[in-house]
């Protein structure tokens, strides 16, 4: 058999088998096709792909499916922020929505220098576990225990446990997924607009004298800040809370706070 013949024979045979398979597949693709909305794939492409679960769905593909089929709100993707909202709006032909970049913040300033421990804790280094033992070893019942449950759950390692045993979120790294908010057993972490800089760094619901005994930088409920803040700070029991939906320009609240718990960053 000549070289040409054998090459032709080989290619012919393989081509023949290939053609047979190809026809079988084409027929299958035509007659056994299943309709699936092609938009789901496109929307998944538009999302950041972090699969962080911050939107409340099991990953980006799941959120894409919800957006396309169940017409779910398009502003649930925190890591995607405004650009993703705009892309989704454009693709789906909807009106775009405004979203402010939010980051997490640990609303407690009582590190080991300011708030001592009330007993020696010997056990699992987890905030939930520590909170279950005698209400936590920190002198303040509401403060940050510093055992790192939030730090470990953060998908982008944006939370640091400082050497003064308190959790601090680095806003530049935070993608706003909210996992730390759900993990903190004392519900200390809040999502705040990234642009704001004045915060009340205390979450204690105890009365003034109790707070003073427990921590040097706790909110004692004196209400001085509420008078200076023009409605942007309100009292909830003995604790002052910033209302981030209102503007807060008066920086005097920081100096005038006798408890030294209001900071500007």
């Amino acid at each position, binding site marked *: 058999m000549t070289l040409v013949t054998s090459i032709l024979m080989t290619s012919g045979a393989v081509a023949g088998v290939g053609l047979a398979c190809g026809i079988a597949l084409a027929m299958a693709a035509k007659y056994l096709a299943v309709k699936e909305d092609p938009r789901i794939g496109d929307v998944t492409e538009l999302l950041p792909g972090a699969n962080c679960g911050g939107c409340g769905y099991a990953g980006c593909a799941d959120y894409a499916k919800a957006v396309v089929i169940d017409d779910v709100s398009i502003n649930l993707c925190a890591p995607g922020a405004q650009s993703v909202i705009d892309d989704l709006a454009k693709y789906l032909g909807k009106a775009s929505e405004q979203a402010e970049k939010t980051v997490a913040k640990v609303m407690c300033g009582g590190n080991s220098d300011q708030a001592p421990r009330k007993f020696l804790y*010997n056990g*699992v280094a987890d905030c939930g*576990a520590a909170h279950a*033992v005698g*209400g936590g070893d920190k002198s303040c*019942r509401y403060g940050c225990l510093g055992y790192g449950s939030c730090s470990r759950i953060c998908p982008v390692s944006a939370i640091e446990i400082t050497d003064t045993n308190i959790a601090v979120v680095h806003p530049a790294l935070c993608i706003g997924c909210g996992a730390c908010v759900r993990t903190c057993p004392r519900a200390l972490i809040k999502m705040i607009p990234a642009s704001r800089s004045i915060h009340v760094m205390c979450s204690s619901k105890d009365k003034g004298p109790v707070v003073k005994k427990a921590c040097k930088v706790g909110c004692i409920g004196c209400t001085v800040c509420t008078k200076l803040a023009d409605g942007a700070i309100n009292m909830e029991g003995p604790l002052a809370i910033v209302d981030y939906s209102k503007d807060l320009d008066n920086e005097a609240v920081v100096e005038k706070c006798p408890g030294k718990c209001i900071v500007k960053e």
Partner: protein
Amino acid sequence: MKALNALFKFKGGVHPDYNKDLCRDQEIKTMPLPSVLKVSMSQHLGAPATPLVKKGDEVLRGQLIGDSSGFISASVHAPTSGKVVAVEPAATATGASCTAVSIEPDGEDKWIDGLKGIDNWENANKKDLVEAIANAGIVGMGGAGFPTNVKLSPPPEKKITTLIINGAECEPYLTADHRLMLEQAQKVWDGCRIIMKILEAEKIIVAIEDNKPEAIQAMEKVMEGTDLNASIAILATEYPQGAEKQQIFSTIGKEVPSGGLPMDVGAVVENVGTVTAIYDAIVKGLPLTERVTTVTGGVIAEPGNVVNRIGTSFQDLIDFCGGFKSKAAKVIAGGPMMGFAQANTATTTTKTTSGILCLGPEKACSYESMPCISCGRCVSACPMKLVPSELSQYLEAEDYEGAEEINVMDCIECGCCAFECPAKRPLVQHMRQGKAHVMIKRRAAQAKK
């Protein structure tokens, strides 16, 4: 009435040093009224009671100061007469915070008027008896604090065949129940008869561990000649023989199903302390205002079993028992296996404070925990047939779904696994952590529905 050895024995368990010699021969003493009684509104399982008094009010002993606030809740009564000096949050023995009513005794110790027992309770209505128990604020005094009136009102489809009286007192160091059976055996037995009247069970078994032979004898004497189908079961001394599910298995050989309750196998278990409180409530009409607490431990000068009013601070009890003779490293509310360590001695007693254990530095050492070596000792020890080594690995990795699948919710937190572990792993803490997270997840799922 001859006591007989129990027929069965639960799987697992451990044998810690019992150290009961410190207090087993100490007669129950009553301590004088302290300078203030801080009565917590949460002395029981379930919703805390709602305070009914405010600062400045005058109260009498037995007066209702906290109202039962739900199906699973109990009332709280003033332990003495005096003036309410504060109604504010206070730390409980477990470290939680709950409203507490502080009363300054006026020294008269006057009972409120109108407290009357039920004459002729043998022929009284079941419902009246249960209501009297509810009004007296009686809860399980073995430690759990489950409202007794709820326990004694099982739904009609759950037929109760056996009443088991828990005289095991398996925790080391504690002797309060032992002394109660020795000194007040008749009262205990009369209380048992009252409960039999309410439950209409087929038989009653008084379960006592074999390290309390005198208590067994005392109960044998008072139960002589009864026409109830009664018996005394001698249980092998082992921890946790006094745990409800284990005791049911040891006495009647039935296993309470996973996630189930004793009434699912037709049993109700009551602690001897609760039984005496029921007697006082039904026969004398007295609400629950005091209990016997064992104050013990190597550093206490004169350990003993003390009757104290609810709301007495630990420090007052310790002072009554001679104070500390050497430095105390740990003050535990309860026993060494399941008790709660306290941050200070300002915590006050509740209806469920069975003991105050004060340990010195040699006995209360802390260990560095190491990785699991899969030795399996914890598996042999677990009375609930769980696998603590695997569970703790799941929980260390924070895999709560996996832990739920291998039954972390069945853990009774008895401490046998941690007791046995050669790597000194904080197993019980892991279990609590797991259970807390599973409960959070279940509540969130329930809320979504």
